[in-house]
């Protein structure tokens, strides 16, 4: 099974020598982020073992930290890492051949395929296979996401731990356990058989959407977003769609991600600050992505088998249609949220519906709708409540809500934005 190559508009920015500065630590971190997923996926296929692949990649990067500062960054850093990691893996398998019989066998079988190792089509398939391994139903959902972020997203264990509010040691243990289960239970490194695909794809979509969201608003760190993660999620979603072209929820998720990603340039001001949907310069929205997203939403509507991702895509498409926030068809959005609630009667959906209701029926009605929702630890609950209160002129309560919101996020840009909301509310007439 071969998946498509990367589309040009969303291709991951490959790190080349030209784009690298000479300050090695940052360079190596950049290369790690963009390349480690490819290299791990390739080595897992080659040697049949996640742990060997991961350790080899770490050793290759360690070698890079020793060599690049003195020798200079190689012309093709990703290729250098791939070659070095492959050598490290082979060395280890030879050294520990008794302990690693499966990898010895895999190594013997794969002896002839070294020459295709840099073929992006092959790598692409490798990544897709690894996604299905990471999202195997025999792994706990929390482990599925963590493993995908670690192996394919190139996130460090402490970053994933912060993203999921658990201590680093807990996350490290969760990852170790998941990798051990892949090895000991012999979870295959394959795209599932056609019969199993629909059932297996649901978990993959959940994980891809979580990765997209982590890229869209990083839970921590200085940057608003990590475009490599959002684009990776989109790329993998395209590949999954090729496997199951008739499953409309995949189409819906792809449309949803494209339409959200289309706003990327408008979401961030020149200082790296967060710009709200209502304040965004919509001329900066990526019309090519919007056109593709709209076409996908239309395809879903024609087939008329709605599902949660399709409905969320339709909501985002309504936003994309509006030239300004005031042109938004809020009644249509509220209607779509009502439909979504049928599939997902969750408090988060109710919160989002209330935001649309606020535009239609005013903040007082919206405030009453979110009162008592069990969302006290959800990072978007408090700022939403704060906005409603601010609009009602209840500045003190609004400020308290924004302050509460700050305690629930570690994203620098979000925190800065909330501070501006507090200042704005402070200057409101009481």
């Amino acid at each position, binding site marked *: 099974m071969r998946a498509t190559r990367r589309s040009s508009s969303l291709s991951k920015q490959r790190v080349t020598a030209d784009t690298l500065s000479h300050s090695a630590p940052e360079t190596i971190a950049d290369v790690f982020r963009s390349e480690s997923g490819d290299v791990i996926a390739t080595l897992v296929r080659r040697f049949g073992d996640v742990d060997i692949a991961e350790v080899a990649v770490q050793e290759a990067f360690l070698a890079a930290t020793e060599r690049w500062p003195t020798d200079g960054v190689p012309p093709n850093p990703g290729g250098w890492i791939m070659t070095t990691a492959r050598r490290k893996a082979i060395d280890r398998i030879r050294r520990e051949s008794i302990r690693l019989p499966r990898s010895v066998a895999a190594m013997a079988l794969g002896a002839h395929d070294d020459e295709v190792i840099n073929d992006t089509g092959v790598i692409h398939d490798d990544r897709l296979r690894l996604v299905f391994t990471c999202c*195997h139903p025999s792994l706990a959902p929390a482990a599925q996401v963590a493993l995908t972020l670690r192996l394919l997203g190139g996130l460090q264990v402490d970053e994933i731990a912060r993203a999921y509010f658990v201590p680093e040691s807990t996350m490290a243990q969760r990852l170790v356990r998941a990798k051990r289960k892949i090895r*000991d*239970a012999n*979870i*295959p490194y*394959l795209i*599932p*058989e056609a019969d199993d695909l629909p059932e297996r794809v649901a978990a993959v979509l959940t994980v891809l959407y979580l990765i997209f969201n982590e890229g869209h608003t990083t839970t921590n760190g200085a940057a608003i977003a990590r475009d490599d993660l959002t684009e990776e999620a989109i790329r993998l979603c395209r590949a999954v769609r090729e496997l199951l072209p008739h499953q409309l929820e995949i189409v819906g998720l792809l449309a949803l991600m494209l339409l959200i990603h289309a706003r990327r340039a408008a979401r961030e001001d020149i200082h790296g600050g967060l710009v709200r949907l209502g304040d965004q310069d919509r001329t900066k929205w990526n019309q090519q992505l919007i056109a593709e997203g709209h076409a996908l939403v239309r395809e879903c509507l024609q087939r008329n088998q709605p599902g949660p991702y399709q409905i969320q895509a339709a909501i985002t498409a309504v936003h994309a249609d509006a030239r300004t926030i005031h042109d938004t068809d809020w009644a249509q959005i509220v209607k779509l949220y009502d439909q979504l609630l049928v599939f997902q009667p969750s408090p988060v959906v109710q919160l989002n519906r209330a935001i649309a209701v606020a535009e239609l029926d005013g903040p007082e009605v919206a405030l009453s709708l979110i009162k008592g929702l069990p969302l006290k630890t959800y990072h978007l609950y408090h700022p939403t409540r704060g906005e409603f209160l601010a609009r009602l002129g209840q500045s003190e309560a609004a400020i308290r809500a924004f302050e509460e919101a700050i305690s629930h996020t570690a994203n620098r840009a979000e925190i800065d934005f909330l501070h501006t909301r507090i200042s704005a509310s402070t200057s409101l007439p009481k």
Partner: protein
Amino acid sequence: MTQYLLAVYGVADQPNYTSPEDQEKAFAAVGVFNTQLQDSGSFVFGGGLMPADIATVVRPDGDGFVVTDGPFSEAKEHIGGFWVIEANDLDAALAWAKQGSAACGQPVEVLPFQSNE
């Protein structure tokens, strides 16, 4: 190839089947499944077990042994039967487990054997 234990679980003091007809149907289905498993070459060993309260527990005690009335586990759920199969990977084992579970109408736990490679 990995060997897997497919363990069928039931709840103690609770009949696994609501009627004799149900039980008969399940037994017949398990028979069909056993044949399929054997014909595929994946079957290693298997069988149904007596109720857990029939079990006896033996444990080492100094130089001798203590023998007590079982079962060992105080859990309500007990293993009621099992298959040992050989499969390419976990997905293949899970496919057999699904069929086995459908046949006997009980949950099946899939656990790989330690490899002696």
